[in-house]
C-alpha cells in the first residue's frame, strides 16, 4: 500500500481546525471578499453586464424589502445551523461531509411523523417530529462516525457516498411507499397537520417561527463549543486524538457524539424546511444547503461566532444572487463563483501570508546588515 497515500489519509485525519480568528485573519477575509467581488465584476463585464447595477440589485434584493430580508434571514438560519453542525463535529476532529443526507432523512422523518400525528395537539406534533428528525439525522451520522472511530474508515469519503445513498433513498420513499395521494403533488409525502406548521414571521417570506428553534440550537451549540467542559475535551480530541486518549479523555466517545450531534442538527434543518416551507417532504427540500453551510464553517475556521456572522453575509450573496438574476439578468451562479474565490483565497491565506512575512523578513535583514556593515570575524 502506498505510504504516500497513508500520508495523505493521515493528513485528512489530521486536518485540524485552526484556532483563533485573529485580526490579521479577519483582514485577509476582508481582502478576500473584496478580491472576489472584483472577480465577479470582471465576469459581469465580460458578459456585458454593468457590475454596479448587478451588485446594487444584489444587495437590494437581499435586504431591500421586508420580504427579501425575511428570506435572507431564513437563509442565514439554514447556513448557520449547517455551519455549526459541521463545526461541532470538526472541533471533535471528525468531518461530517454528509450533512445533506442527514438533512434529507431528518426532513423525511419529520414529515412522516407530522402527517401521521394529525389530530394531536400542535406542541406534541412538533416535539415528536423534532425527536424523529434528530433521531434520523443523528443515527445516519452515527454510522460513518462509528466506522471512523472504531475502524478508522475515512469519514470524508463514506459520508459523501452515504449522502447520495440517502438522497436516492428519500427520493424512492417520496415517490413510492410514502407518496401522497393528494392530487397535483408530483413527488412528496403527505402534508403535515397544517395547524402544526410554523407560521411565517414576515409575510410572503421564508422566515417562520422556526427561527426561534434555530436560535435556541445556535445558542446551545455555541455554549457547548466555547464554554463547556465537554467543548474543552472536544477541542483536545480534535487537535490531537492520541493525546486526548492518553490524558484520560474519552476521545472515541466524544468524536462519536460530535458526529451524532452534528447529524441531529442537520436533521432539524430538514424539519425546519418541512414545517416551515413545504409542509411536506419533497425531493426538492434542499439544494446543497449543507455544502454551503460547510464552506462557511471552513472559512471561519469552525469558530461558532464567526460562523454565525458569515452565514448572514453568505445568505445575502445567495438570496441577492437570485434576485440579481431576476432584475439584472445575469445568471445567479456568478455568486457561486464569487463565493468560491473567497474560499480559495481564505484557504490559501496561511500560505500566502507566510510567504509575505518571510519575504519581508528577508528584506529587512538584508537592509539592516547592509547598514551595520559586516561584523568582525570570530
Amino acid at each position, binding site marked *: 500500500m502506498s505510504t504516500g*497515500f497513508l500520508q495523505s489519509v493521515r493528513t485528512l485525519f489530521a486536518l485540524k481546525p485552526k484556532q483563533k480568528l485573529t485580526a490579521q485573519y479577519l483582514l485577509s477575509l476582508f481582502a478576500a471578499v473584496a478580491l472576489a467581488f472584483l472577480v465577479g465584476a470582471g465576469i459581469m463585464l465580460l458578459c456585458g453586464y454593468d457590475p454596479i447595477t448587478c451588485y446594487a440589485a444584489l444587495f437590494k434584493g437581499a435586504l431591500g424589502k421586508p420580504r427579501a430580508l425575511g428570506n435572507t434571514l431564513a437563509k442565514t438560519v439554514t447556513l448557520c445551523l449547517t455551519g455549526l453542525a459541521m463545526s461541532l463535529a470538526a472541533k471533535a476532529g471528525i468531518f461530517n461531509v454528509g450533512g445533506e443526507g442527514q438533512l434529507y432523512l431528518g426532513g423525511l422523518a419529520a414529515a412522516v411523523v407530522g402527517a401521521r400525528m394529525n389530530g394531536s395537539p400542535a406542541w406534541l406534533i412538533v416535539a415528536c417530529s423534532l425527536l424523529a428528525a434528530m433521531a434520523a439525522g443523528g443515527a445516519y451520522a452515527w454510522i460513518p462516525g462509528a466506522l471512523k472511530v472504531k475502524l478508522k474508515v475515512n469519514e*470524508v469519503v463514506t459520508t*459523501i457516498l*452515504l449522502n447520495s445513498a440517502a438522497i436516492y433513498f428519500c427520493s424512492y420513499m417520496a415517490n413510492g411507499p410514502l407518496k401522497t395521494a393528494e392530487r397535483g403533488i408530483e413527488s412528496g409525502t403527505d402534508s403535515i397537520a397544517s395547524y402544526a406548521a410554523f407560521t411565517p414571521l414576515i409575510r410572503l417570506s421564508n422566515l417562520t417561527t422556526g427561527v426561534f428553534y434555530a436560535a435556541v440550537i445556535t445558542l446551545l451549540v455555541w455554549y457547548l463549543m466555547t464554554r463547556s467542559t465537554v467543548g474543552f475535551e472536544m477541542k483536545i480530541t480534535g487537535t490531537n486524538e492520541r493525546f486526548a486518549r492518553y490524558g484520560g479523555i474519552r476521545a472515541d466517545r466524544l468524536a462519536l457524539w460530535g458526529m451524532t450531534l452534528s447529524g441531529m442538527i442537520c436533521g432539524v434543518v430538514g424539519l425546519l424546511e418541512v414545517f416551515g416551507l413545504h409542509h411536506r417532504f419533497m425531493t426538492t427540500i434542499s439544494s446543497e444547503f449543507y455544502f454551503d453551510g460547510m464552506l462557511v464553517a471552513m472559512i471561519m475556521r469552525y469558530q461558532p461566532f464567526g460562523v454565525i456572522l458569515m452565514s448572514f453575509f453568505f445568505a445575502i450573496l445567495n438570496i441577492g444572487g437570485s434576485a440579481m438574476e431576476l432584475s439584472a439578468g445575469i445568471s445567479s451562479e456568478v455568486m*457561486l463563483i464569487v463565493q*468560491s474565490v473567497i*474560499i480559495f483565497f481564505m484557504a490559501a491565506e496561511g500560505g500566502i501570508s507566510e510567504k509575505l512575512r518571510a519575504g519581508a523578513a528577508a528584506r529587512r535583514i538584508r537592509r539592516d546588515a547592509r547598514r551595520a556593515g559586516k561584523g568582525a570575524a570570530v
Partner: protein
Amino acid sequence: MSEIFNILLVQNTLRTATPVVLCALGCLMSDQVGIMNIGVDGMMLMGAFFAVLGSYLFGSWLAGILFTMILGMLLGYFYYVFSVKFKSDEFIIGVALNILAGGLTVFLLRTLFGVKGSFSSPRIVPLPTLHIPWLESIPVLGPILSGNTLLVYVSWLLVFLCWVLLYKTPLGFHLRASGQAPEALRASGVNPDRMKRIASVLCGVLAALSGAHLSLGYLTMFSENMSASRGYVAVACVIFGGSNPPRVFLAALLFGFIDALGMRLQKYIPSDITSMAPYVVTVVMMVAVVLLKRRKPSGIKPAAQ
C-alpha cells in the same frame, strides 16, 4: 436471469467504469506524490463541459479532447499551487473546487448556450467508436471488447502506462519518493515540489478526460451535475487499490459492474434503489478492506480498547 447477466452487461460495465478508471488514475498519480485530490469530481464535471464546448465550436471531437486536456492541465496546476505553494487545506480546496465546478458549468451553460439543465446539439461530435479486428476475434467477449468509444481503450492503455511510469522509470521513483519522503528526495538533488506539480497536472488532465468520456463518449450532451459524485467513487477506488494502477482499475471495474447491473435491474427494482446501490456497496467495501487488513498481521485480535 439471462436477460440481466448477458454480454451487454459486460459492455455497460466497461463504459460505466471508464470515467471512474480515468479519474481514479489521475487521483492515484496525485496521491503518489502525497496530495489527496478530492476535487477530481469538479474536474470531471468541468472536463465534461469543455469537451462539449470544444466539439461544438469546432465540429470535431479532437477539439473537444484538446479543450479538455488544456483545462485539465490548468486545473491540475491550480490545485498544485494552492495545496503545495500556499499550503491550503486539501480538503477545503477540493470541496471548493467541486462547488466552483458546479457553479461555473451552470453559469456557462446558461450564458453561452442559453439553456438550463442540459445541452445537446447535432453540432456536437461524439468520440469515435473503434472496431478493432483482432479484439473482435476473441470468442465470446470479442464483440464487446471491440466497438467501444475511444477513451475506453485509452483508459486501458493508460492503466498500463501509469504502472510502467511509476514502477519502471526514474521519474516514477521520484514521484513516489516525493510522496513518501520528500525531504529525502530534496537531499538527493531532485525537487519534490516539481514532482508534485507534474503529478497534479497529470491528475487534472486525467480527471478532465474522464469527464470528456461522460459527455462525448457515453452520451453526446452535457447536463448539470453530470459527474454524479463519480469523482468521489474514484477516490474510494484509489483507497481500495492502494494507489496501484492495476488494482485501482479492478476496483473501478467493480463499481462499473454494480452500476451497470443496477441499470439493468431497473425494470424490476425502483431506479432510486438501484442508483443507491453502488454507493452503499462502495462504503461496505471500504469497511471490508479495513477489516481484512486487521486480520492479517498475526491473527490476534486487539483487546477491547
